[in-house]
């Protein structure tokens, strides 16, 4: 059985946030929801200012606090290491987003159809619906409505429904079809590497052997599957700059 993991090479990451965009288009996430998020940090004072970037997907922890606290078992971990959310079981208590030290969980505070950038774009425009068949958003990915894993649950982001939780799924609908997650696939400088960590001759295993990876918030004991190479663990000395429109 594969054990999926991801390596983030901070010496290659340009902080361009293409991974965030690819994730948003692939998973049709609504406004201000970032399954993949990239911090842009500034540190120190002029002129010895330092800058750094930090991509933050879900860490798919092996000792996942979110799985432990979920009162109804909507959030579960699979043998292949991916932590997923079952939108038909989730009761929207949002306990997982508080247990998670990384803040990777997002809650559908309203009906998704109302949250697709409705401020400036009228998706019901007849000329657009004549082309897209009235699908909102017009780039809606049909893979999300299918069932995945031998547990056969609708975990690939089809959960865009009011009142349920959702988070990065390592693009389970792509990985199960043998493709790379959308963020890994689009990263311009190949700073994201994804693959089966248990198989020694995959690119990710070679990467891990070549460089000593560190983990984010190692001290919380969550044993994340996402490994970081280069750069250094973030501290509160870093201040976030250029935040996206993160609150709706």
């Amino acid at each position: 059985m594969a054990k999926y993991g991801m390596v983030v090479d901070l010496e290659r990451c340009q902080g361009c946030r293409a991974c965030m965009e690819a994730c948003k288009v692939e998973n049709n996430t609504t406004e201000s929801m970032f399954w993949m998020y990239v911090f842009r940090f500034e540190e120190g004072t002029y002129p010895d200012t330092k800058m750094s970037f930090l991509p933050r997907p879900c860490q798919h922890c092996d000792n996942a606090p979110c799985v432990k606290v979920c009162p109804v078992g909507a959030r579960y971990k699979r043998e292949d290491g991916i932590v997923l959310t079952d939108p038909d079981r989730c009761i929207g208590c949002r306990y997982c987003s508080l247990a998670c030290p990384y803040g990777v969980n997002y809650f559908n505070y309203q009906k998704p159809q109302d949250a697709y950038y409705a401020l400036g774009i009228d998706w019901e425009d007849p000329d657009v619906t004549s082309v897209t068949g009235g699908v909102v958003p017009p780039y809606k990915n049909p893979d999300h409505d299918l069932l995945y894993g031998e547990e056969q649950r609708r975990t690939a982001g089809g959960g865009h429904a009011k009142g349920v939780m959702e988070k990065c799924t390592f693009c389970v609908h792509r990985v199960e079809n043998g493709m790379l997650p959308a963020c890994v696939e689009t990263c311009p400088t190949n700073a994201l590497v994804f693959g089966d960590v248990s198989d020694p001759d995959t690119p990710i295993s070679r990467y891990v052997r070549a460089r000593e990876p560190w983990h984010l918030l190692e001290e919380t004991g969550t044993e994340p599957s996402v490994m970081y190479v280069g750069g250094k663990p973030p501290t509160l000395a870093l201040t976030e700059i250029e935040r996206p429109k993160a609150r709706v």
Partner: protein
Amino acid sequence: MPKVTRRTFVKTSAVAAGGTALARNYLFGPLDTVAAESPLALQPMVEDVVPTTCWIGKQDCGMLARRVDGRVIKFEGHPANPRNAGTLCPKGQAQIVALYDPNRVKWPLIRTNAKGATGEWRRASWDEALQLVADQVNEVRERDPKAVLWQKGRSKAKKFYDDAFVKSLGSAKMGHGAYCSDVGYRVLEYMIGTHAVLHPDFRYCDYMLSWGWNITGAGGNKTCWLQWPRHMVEAKERGLTITHIDPRLRSAGPFADDWLAIRPGTDLAMALALCHELVAQGFLDRPYLSTYTNAPYLVKPDGSVAKVTVGEGEEAEELALVWDEDAGAAVPFAEATSRALEGSYEIDGEVLRPAFEVFKEHIAQYSPEWAAPITDLPAEKIRQVATDFGEKAQIGSTLVVDGVEVPYRPVGIMAYHVAQQELGFPTLQAMTMVPMLVGAMGAAGGQLSDYSWKIHKNYAKFEKLTVDDPPYDYFLNKSKFFPINTGLPGVVAKVMQDPAKFGVEKLPEVAILHMVNPLNAFPSQPDFLASYGMFKFVAVISPWLSETADYFADVVLPAATIEKYEGPISVNNQYIDGSTLRIPPMDPLFESKGEIDIYMDLTEKMGLLYGEDGYLYQVNKALGLVDDKAEFGVDINSKPQVRDIFDNWARSEGIEEGVAYFEDPGKSVYIKGPVKPTKMYGYATDPPFGGAIHRFYGESLLDAQNQMKEKGAEAIYYQDYNALPTWRPPTMDSSPAEYDLYMISYKLIEHKQARTSFVPLLAELAPGARVDINPVTANRLGIESGDVVTVESHNAVTGETRSIALPAVMCEGIRPDVVGIPHHFGMWTHPVNEGQGSSPNELYFTGEGYTTNTADQSFHVKVRVRKGGEL
């Protein structure tokens, strides 16, 4: 229990009824019932992939469009395209929303209200709109073709269908180069003949000066973001060290090994100091200087080059003289065996000195200690950069690349938009001299500029610059103002407002604007507000209603975004060459059309489509389907499908399947193969450097200055035409002291000039404009993060002031005397633009003091900032 009276019964039942309605509503209605949407996809879907290229950025990355039932749902990078190798930047991913944007121009629009204010439109058919444009343009064209002005923003592939349109009309043509580092192109065309600016050979470079290069946010020379950062990251892993010279650290992010926070507008001083140090520390590649540059030319005391005329009549040509140390006499350049670079020689009673000797004397004054107070950089640091550059150049070493031995100088400069400053021309001259001194120009690991060593026609033209007498054309070509002239829309705007001052009689009357938005995208918005109002008739071709169209267009023709055939598109990433096409992933939405269709229909209406010198003839010429490839030419007497044009072009390139090759996702990128060293490195080309002698010494510039003086030009126009780059403080520094800050503008990676701020996915990443200000300065001015501040600019020549208000953001990575503003916002026609703030182009000036001596726009101005103001 309280008695159940009729009133309470009514109230409780109402509440109860409400309750059941609520429950029913909740369980089954729009409250998203217990089970969310339908679990399984309903009907089986047809899924396919269409190969195409990105339409939003500059370098047309290869893409695969995933479609379901004909509806594009995802763009992904095309693995075979060398420029992006299967990856995409944020804009590439997000353009899918722009495709479906209901705010696109859906059908041809004809204005119904007066120009100069927000337009009211009526829907028109293509026939009616094209006919109107054809009539209006023809009426003017018959009188004077040059009175028709065709203007374009970014060309999204090889400029063939737009060049063909201009030639078939005979109209004037205006591009956007003057805002996109074209002064750098002029310098490289002048000095070494290539049509490009500067970038290092990343594959072997060890030490790079990232000079004003926005590594993590913007393009670079030739191609754009994504390709260069890929090369840079691989080079850094190999050990490349980067010294970042830029008032803003943000552009380099974590990739700057050393950050020199230089004061804006003083890059010339820094470059001169580097030249001074390289000469002083003896880092000189004498064989290169004496063999491939005009450094050995003997210069008279008046600065002109000593020449001898050889041959009579027409073949008579003047050959520059050099001092041949072996022969001990002045001989023409070609005949000398050992050309002297230094010393002074008396010939026919005159004391002549090699140009290099003049250069050494000229830069003797420009020591790092001299440059330190000007650039506000420690002298020691400037000296250290020169030493590193010199040492790491490994002068004299060679390297065998793919079997070809080439001089090896692993040092170089990446410089592009740094050229956009008032002293842009001399600055780039001095910066280009730095790699030339160590012989890195065209060397392995060294300084490259174009993807081949093709010599541009301007190289020959710049040998002798001519300054005519008025009347001049409205671009002021060959005028006493701009002997070298890129063609700046800002200058045209100034000329239109006051033709007499510039000695211009004939002004443009009709304009065709294709995907260009001067009101928002180019500096000095007030000038464009004034000048574009003067056009009798303006036709705009654009997918969105641009701000310029909103105020001044008579007719708006809806162009498709990515849903059209376009090309041919080079996929050259410096190391691998090839070509591809843009294939429409869907039919054009609404009633929009691809530009080639529009141009064919328009020229047909104008009667210029068919026949000799018609549009189709020009298309064949522009695509090279003439002479030996004439058989592939399009029949010039019948209107082809756009797809057929590319089918013919593909066959002419030797691809039997024609355009089908590019429509097949398995193929679709035609790789010609790796770029050979004999094409990439100047030393290795045949003849070396394309046969062009590198103009180290600019005699024709000095000559131009003399002509300008004779013709009565003012000092502000001629002062930078010097044989050798000479320092002077920029004009903006003479603004009063209260304008104590420099304003610079910069590009964000999430946006592309003025074309993406209304794409909601990108507006989410970068929501709006801001003023980056150093906390120390902000503290002094009593400004806290998030406060709205007013930024007021001052024109040092005219005294005019302009101001905008934007939120302030604290930024430690910027000089205390500099404020930075992104230039993607300030638009108003699209709902998503709401509240995004103004554009710095409303603050910049154009014209005297704020353009280069080659009519290129300067993006510098002195400003003052104070708290307060409304957004």
